[in-house]
């Protein structure tokens, strides 16, 4: 056992060896951290002390042509979680209890919306202030939970304007794939429909970034000084061509009816003055997280509140499109201004089928303008047969049917304008009869139009064949005060000569002012109205009631097209409604004029 007793020299030497060994270990440790892993750890130390937070810009405000609010923002609070700061068994559990959202759902939302582990991930939007107060007081109980002030969209419910405003919501994964803007990330709020969608890039603004210093316990120190924040750019404001008063007038007429659509436009420039789809929905509910039950209720409603009727509703236009057939006849030389067909005796025998006129007692012999005045079907049947299916279709196309109008709103339908090719495809070659032409000539059968297309058509008619592209945004005002004024754009011109147009406009006038006009009840002493009624046969139920009105006729400023679903004759239902709307427009205009005149101001605003 001698080897276990050591001399003092040996012990001293061993002590030094041990100390050297010990220092080498510590030096290796230091070298590893401060030299090899330095870059990594320095980055980590940055992340630890600063939390990167997005500054959500104020979304642009949308007003009507007179500066009245259509879409506004209201302040709300959003609860977010910073994933890296989650404490197991505490953060999510306590939060779940507080905001009444189960833990699995919170986790799902965090996973889905996470941008970075160091950045707050929104969990619930629009939380009540009481919850914010609890989070503020008991922040220790909710490690990693933060709340942020966010603005929530507020839609003027009274307007019934959701058909063009659309709404906003959290971006979905599918949408994200299509958007290349780096500003849009999971959890971002983007426009989902309507103007909100079409002008999302303008309304949204640019997200900013701020760096916040926090302690390990999650307490805010303040804004981080070393890294300058990138300020957010507020979204641009939009001024629409909409007139809120007219919009309200359009919405109110539906009080007694189930469903329908109204489009009011200015034929001189294509501005949409009012547009409503009834029934609508409350766009505000989409601003925060919409409960599934409510969503299902809206989606499954048999009256289809989510259907954007003016742009996507496809209806047979009925007699409202008789102008096209007559115009085509005049252009093609099939008819002349005063030429007449066989008299109308209440119907027309074609082959083994009897095609009825809407007036069983018959109209007798009529010229072109009076055919429009009284909406005689028998005249149209004979004209249609002479023109043939493809000629008729060609003119429908020339008047904008079957083609998207190009309005600055998303998800527009093109309607349907059938021709030989279409029928061959649908029924097979020679498996269909010319009877279909008869239907087409009176706006029935396969021909389908959207209310917007019809409004565009009457604008063209009122504007001597020049059609301006329908548009709803008049002015864009960026946050830096830069303005873009949207100029009216001519979309196309009718394939009609001036003479043809004169005859058609004569018909337009006779519908209201003529002795036998189908809408003569709209005649009044203050201003002249033109128009056309329509009764669209609906295979699924009662007829749809159409009316297109133009006023004042000497210098048309407004076109109003209304369809009331399953309401019966156009002359009985839609015409008085349109009359009412035009009246509210003209009254307001005259009031302004009266006031201006008494003040000595030129109402047109164009002095010299």
């Amino acid at each position, binding site marked *: *056992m001698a080897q*276990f*007793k*050591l001399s003092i020299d040996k012990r001293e030497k061993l002590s030094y060896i041990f*100390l050297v060994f010990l220092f080498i270990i510590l030096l290796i*440790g230091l070298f590893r951290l401060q030299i090899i892993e330095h870059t990594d750890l320095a980055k980590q*130390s940055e992340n630890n*002390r600063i939390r990167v937070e997005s500054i959500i810009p104020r979304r642009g405000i949308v007003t009507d042509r007179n500066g009245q609010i259509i879409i506004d923002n209201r302040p709300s609070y959003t609860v977010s979680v910073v994933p890296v700061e989650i404490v197991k068994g505490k953060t999510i559990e306590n939060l779940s209890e507080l905001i009444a959202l189960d833990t699995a759902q919170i986790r799902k939302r965090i996973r889905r919306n996470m941008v970075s582990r160091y950045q707050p991930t929104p969990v619930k939007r629009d939380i009540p202030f009481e919850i914010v107060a609890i989070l503020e007081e008991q922040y220790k109980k909710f490690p990693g939970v933060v709340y942020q002030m966010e603005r929530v969209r507020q839609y003027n419910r009274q307007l019934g304007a959701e058909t063009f405003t659309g709404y906003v919501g959290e971006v979905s994964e599918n949408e994200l794939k299509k958007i290349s803007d780096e500003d849009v990330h999971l959890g971002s709020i983007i426009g989902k429909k309507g103007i909100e969608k079409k002008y999302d890039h303008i309304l949204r603004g640019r997200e900013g970034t701020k760096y916040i210093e*926090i*302690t390990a316990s999650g307490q805010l120190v303040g804004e981080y000084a070393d890294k300058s924040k990138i300020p957010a750019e507020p979204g641009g404001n939009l001024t629409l061509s909409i007139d809120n008063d007219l919009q309200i007038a359009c919405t109110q007429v539906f009080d007694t009816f189930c469903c329908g659509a109204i489009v009011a436009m200015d034929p001189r420039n294509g501005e949409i003055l009012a547009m409503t789809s009834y029934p609508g929905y409350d766009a505000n509910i989409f601003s925060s997280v919409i409960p599934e039950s409510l969503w299902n209720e809206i989606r499954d409603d048999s009256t289809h509140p989510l259907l954007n009727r003016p742009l996507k509703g496809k209806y047979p236009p009925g007699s409202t499109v008789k102008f096209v057939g007559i115009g085509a006849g005049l252009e093609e030389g099939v008819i002349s201004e005063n030429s007449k067909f066989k008299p109308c005796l209440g119907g027309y025998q074609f082959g083994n089928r009897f095609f009825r006129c809407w007036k069983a007692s018959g109209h007798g012999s009529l010229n072109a303008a009076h055919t429009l005045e009284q909406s005689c079907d028998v005249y149209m049947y004979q004209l249609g047969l002479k023109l043939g299916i493809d000629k008729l279709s060609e003119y429908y196309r020339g008047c904008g049917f079957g083609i998207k109008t190009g309005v600055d709103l998303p998800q527009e339908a093109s309607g349907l304008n059938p021709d030989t090719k279409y029928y061959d495809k649908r029924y097979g070659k020679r498996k269909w009869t010319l009877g279909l032409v008869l239907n087409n000539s009176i706006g029935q059968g396969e021909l389908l139009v959207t209310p917007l297309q019809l409004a565009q058509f009457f604008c063209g008619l009122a504007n001597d064949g020049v059609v301006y592209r329908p548009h709803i945004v008049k002015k864009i005002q960026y946050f830096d005060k830069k303005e873009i004024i949207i100029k009216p754009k001519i979309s196309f011109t009718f394939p009609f000569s001036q003479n043809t147009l004169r005859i058609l406009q004569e018909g337009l006038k006779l519908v209201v002012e003529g002795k036998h006009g189908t809408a003569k009840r709209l005649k009044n002493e203050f201003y002249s109205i033109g128009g056309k009624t329509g009764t669209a046969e609906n295979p699924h139920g009662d007829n749809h009631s159409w009316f297109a009105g133009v006023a004042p006729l000497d210098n048309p400023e407004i076109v109003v097209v209304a369809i009331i679903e399953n309401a019966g004759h156009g002359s009985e239902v839609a015409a008085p409604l349109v009359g009412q709307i035009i009246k509210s427009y003209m009254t307001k205009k005259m009031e302004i004029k009266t006031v201006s005149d008494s003040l000595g101001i030129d109402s047109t605003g164009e002095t010299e």
Partner: protein
Amino acid sequence: MTIKYSSLDWKLILAAVLLTLIGIVLIMSAQHNASTEYQQNYYQRQMIWFAIAFFIFAVIVHVPPKLFDLLAYVIYGVSIILLILVLFVGTAKMGAYGWFSFGPINFAPSDLAKIAVLFALSRFLAYTKLPVTSKRRMALTSLLVAVPVMLILKQPDLGTSLVFLVILFVLWFWSGLSPFYLLLIISPILSLVTASHWLSWSIYFVLLLIFLFSVRPGLLFGIVTVITNLAFGSVMPFLWNRLAEYQKLRILTFLDPGRDPRGAGYQIIQSKIAIGSGGIFGKGLLHGSQTRLDFLPEPHTDFIFSVLGEEFGLLGALILLFLFGVIFYRAVRIAVHCRSKFSSLLVMGAAGIIMFQFLINIGMTLGFMPVTGLPLPFVSYGGTSLVLFWSLIGFMVAAEARWQEY
């Protein structure tokens, strides 16, 4: 009895003074942004403690080591009584009961016990006639250590208990026992650690047998070693369950700091980030973001080295290591130089205490030692700890000043 100031070990004193001053600066930096004024003024209190500690150091230097030799067992007895008392009237700090509170002053009797055990062991080993490897010698010295360790484990404080084992091992070694022998003695603990997995334990056991075969410590000793190793390896799961939750967590976190980054492992991760982000030159005084924004737990005590690493980088750390190196080197020199066996053992034991806490603390901040709550000698905030370490320096300086005395 006067001493000549020229005979004092000024290099040693200077190293300790510099370490203490570095400590005060770091404490100030660590608590610069603290929420209470009390915390912000930690460094001022540390300065007062330094004055007290230096005064005690000066007293010790003037006291002949012979006196400690004579009073060794008395001091030992008093410290045992204090350790028992603290279990009943002590206050809790960081999950451990071990403090006497006198108003703002906290006194840990375990710090006094370190000195008391050092005295008692030095006294015993200096005069015993028993051979180095005698079982009675080992048993008696073990008993001297076991009593305070048992009492401290009851508090419970694992780190401090380990300090006592280190004192015992260092003194065994300095009184002549071969380190191989020490290795065999601690082999059951290695067996315990490796027993967490059957494969690691098998490898360890094979290595142990090879070692025994080559060193040949004697048949009986060999057999006892093998049996205790087998026993410790098999009772591990049982012992594991007896550990306090925080101890289990500390060990587990030590083994895998990433397993709970927000809990215990968080401290280690944050400390590593602090030191690593400091790089070569550091972020500068008061510019350590980890320190300033309290990502570092206890930046003024346990993790003071992390503050140094972050704010002064590798350069600052090297200076600190150098100063400790001076202390250890001088201690060994003195222990070899002085004629009194008691003084030699005392100095070596004192160096052992400093060395162990230095190793454990820095190892912890670098991430390869468990979080034990042992402060860094001279540097960490803490009055009694500062007094203890300056007392230890006092013993060294005193021994050197009277190196000729037996």
